[in-house]
């Protein structure tokens, strides 16, 4: 049976497309009509065509496995029903993201210089002392344009009342943007006629913008600076993206052993003609692996002397080392204050309500309500060091209680967040699935926000885990001009 919107059950969450059964939001009607007009075999055909496109385009992500093959490439899971966002709403989000990243960059620069914000007691000093991502090696360094987080990926979610919140900021090596670009290509291949119904903003100038952003950081003033994308290599889960971006920018895709820091503190690539100087490195290698002379001495991914080259201004690194200090989950709770402090503006996009265990009053509230909270450790990601209260056992809660009391600085808690849902194809019909959105913000000489971003969707019923490694999929994200309706 084809998709019937009257059978679509909006289950107590905000749904992106459907107000309630059989009532698509006004601007979503043409889209919903289109999908319900597709016959079963047509729907299946399109689904197959999208899978084929993904397979033949080689859009993959890498998953580690224990068998002899080592890591394997999985085809990128893609849902064919797009996720539209109205342009008038998006314009507001875009301004909010720009504001947020501007403040975060001022914050990071302050942390590595005068620490005015600490002296003014807006952010407590002990947060920095204990921060795993604060790098003493970065103190006093002046990266070009005073920007540290050149590429930021902020995760947005929509709550029950339709409000958009920032769930977290990724300031180290955020990934996913290539899938955003590829999803659009797949969609154009498989549903060309849909693009007649809507005026959809293009997404594909991102690589150009990224190039311009990186070029604006070059220490040498030349017409076309030498830009390299530094990847950990083919086994990295985001390798596809590293190669993709390098190709689209016309930059060299390099691995640690391709680079070499000379006695003059400049960075050189090994080429068939000999050594060639590099001006800007878009590095997709974590801080601690960047330079074995300074960080992990056994890192094979990094380049000995790279930090020295960066500190001396001979090469630009994006993102700058140490930028991760601001994507600590505890720091997150302070971002609204950070925005106010540096910009004297109110945040345009709110944070999710967050309790800081470092504050006694909030800690007591958290401990008393552990069964209703999601507790997160400051520097963990990917679901580690996390307690989901409503699904936890008494034993787990007791364990977390001990952890929190022992190291309160390291923990935050949030009420269980209700992610919005969106129609997602399940066999031959549509069901609501939870989703988030990761837009990317570029900061160099200018600021740029992707049109939309990467929509990630939890393909398992009821799940809110959107990571592709854990059963998440993705959708093409449309910013549509509805003429203000």
């Amino acid at each position: 049976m084809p998709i019937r919107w009257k059978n679509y059950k909006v289950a107590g969450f905000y749904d992106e497309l459907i107000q309630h059964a059989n009532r698509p939001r006004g601007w979503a009607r043409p889209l919903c009509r289109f999908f319900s007009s597709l016959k079963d075999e047509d729907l299946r055909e399109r689904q197959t065509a999208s899978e084929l496109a993904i397979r033949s385009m080689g859009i993959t992500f890498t998953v580690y496995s224990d068998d002899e093959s080592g890591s394997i490439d999985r085809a990128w899971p893609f849902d064919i029903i797009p996720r539209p966002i109205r342009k008038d709403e998006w314009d507001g989000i875009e301004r909010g993201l720009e504001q947020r990243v501007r403040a975060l960059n001022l914050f990071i620069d302050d942390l590595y210089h005068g620490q005015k914000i600490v002296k003014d007691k807006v952010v407590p000093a002990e947060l920095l002392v204990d921060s795993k991502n604060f790098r003493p090696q970065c103190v006093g360094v002046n990266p070009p344009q005073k920007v540290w987080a050149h590429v930021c990926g902020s995760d947005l979610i929509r709550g029950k009342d339709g409000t958009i919140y920032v769930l977290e900021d990724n300031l180290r090596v955020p990934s996913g943007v290539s899938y955003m670009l590829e999803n659009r290509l797949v969609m154009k291949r498989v549903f060309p006629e849909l693009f007649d119904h809507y005026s959809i903003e293009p997404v594909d100038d991102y690589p150009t913008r990224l190039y311009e952003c990186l070029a604006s950081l070059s220490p040498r003033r030349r017409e076309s600076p030498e830009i390299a994308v530094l990847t950990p290599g083919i086994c990295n889960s985001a390798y596809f993206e590293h190669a993709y971006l390098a190709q689209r920018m016309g930059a060299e895709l390099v691995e640690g052993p391709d680079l070499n820091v000379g006695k003059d503190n400049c960075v050189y690539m090994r080429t068939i003609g000999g050594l060639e100087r590099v001006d800007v490195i878009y590095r997709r290698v974590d801080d601690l692996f960047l330079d074995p002379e300074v960080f992990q001495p056994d890192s094979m991914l990094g380049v000995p002397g790279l930090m020295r080259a960066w500190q001396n201004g001979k090469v630009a690194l994006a993102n700058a080392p140490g930028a991760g200090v601001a994507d600590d989950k505890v720091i997150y709770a302070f971002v609204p204050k950070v925005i106010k402090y540096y910009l004297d503006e109110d945040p345009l996009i709110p944070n999710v309500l967050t309790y800081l265990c470092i504050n006694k009053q909030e800690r007591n509230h958290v401990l008393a309500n552990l069964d209703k909270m999601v507790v997160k450790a400051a520097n963990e990601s990917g679901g580690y060091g996390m307690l989901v209260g409503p699904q936890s056992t008494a034993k787990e809660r007791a364990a977390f209680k001990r952890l929190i009391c022992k190291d309160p600085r390291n923990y935050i808690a949030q009420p269980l967040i209700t992610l919005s849902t969106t129609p997602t194809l399940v066999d031959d019909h549509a069901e609501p699935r939870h989703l988030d959105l990761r837009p990317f913000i570029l900061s160099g000489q200018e600021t740029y926000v992707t049109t939309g971003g990467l929509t990630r969707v939890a393909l398992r019923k009821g799940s809110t885990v959107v990571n592709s490694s854990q059963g998440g999929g993705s959708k093409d994200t449309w910013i549509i001009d509805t003429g203000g309706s």
Partner: protein
Amino acid sequence: MLSRVAERIYWMARYLERAENTARLINVNAHLLLDLPKKLPLGWRPLIDISGYGKLFDDLYPEPSERNVTRFLVADNRNPSSLLLSLNNARDNARAIRDIIPREGWEVINALYLDTKASLPMGLAQKRRFEFLHAIIGRVEQMTGLLAGTMLRNAGYNFLRMGRNLERADMTTRIVDVRSESLLPQEPEELLPFENIQWMSVLQSLSGYQSYSQKIQGPVRRRNVVRFLLQDPEFPRTFLYCVGQVKQCLRDLPHKRDAVKLIDRTLRSIRRARLEEMDKDGLHKYIDKLQLRLARLDGVITGTYFAL
């Protein structure tokens, strides 16, 4: 161009060429055997010898039957040169440089490996095998054409062509070597009528029969075929031609002196060689020398451009 990238391109081309050549060898051998009297002891063993992994094969399989040989050459991952492994290696190399080769190139190579893997072992069933291998040859050729039609004519393209031509030259010498060994009739009188078709099959495995006929009239004889495959300056799979191509590729590359010197010596040698006067042993020794030269050339290229 990064040294690592140049190396990847070079090996991608080599592995693709190797896969194609393996497919060619099997198909032609199958056709040849159909034409030969049963008492001729040729069978499938020579293909194993051409691959250079005779000992490995003997360790793994009881006998060089059609089934065992084709499985070893196509699908057995324990054979470092198996067709499937070659495609996989080509794909790994291509993936590592997908920012360099045209996107469609990656798509073809990726699909080629995945499809080939998916159609095994069905593709090896005797009645399907020809189509299966034929399709692989066609798709590698498609890849070659696609790269020729879309790749920037820069250093990368030169490394691609160097890899392909070195692999081709290597395969041509292997085929000539093994075939002249095994195809030389033990009892010339009796088997003479078959010499013709045996050497035709050698030419066919290199898609060279037509070209050969255009240049050389009369029955297909060992002497002429060997000279044609090693010394012809116009057919693009001969030793002379392929090595000459490598020299051409080096023209615009830096630091090429050592490689060019070695090539010039090799070209002088092959042009002057009096192949028609060599007996079985002489030819075998001479081909050994050519293969050694190819290995050294590979070493010089690696040393100059890849291992900085």
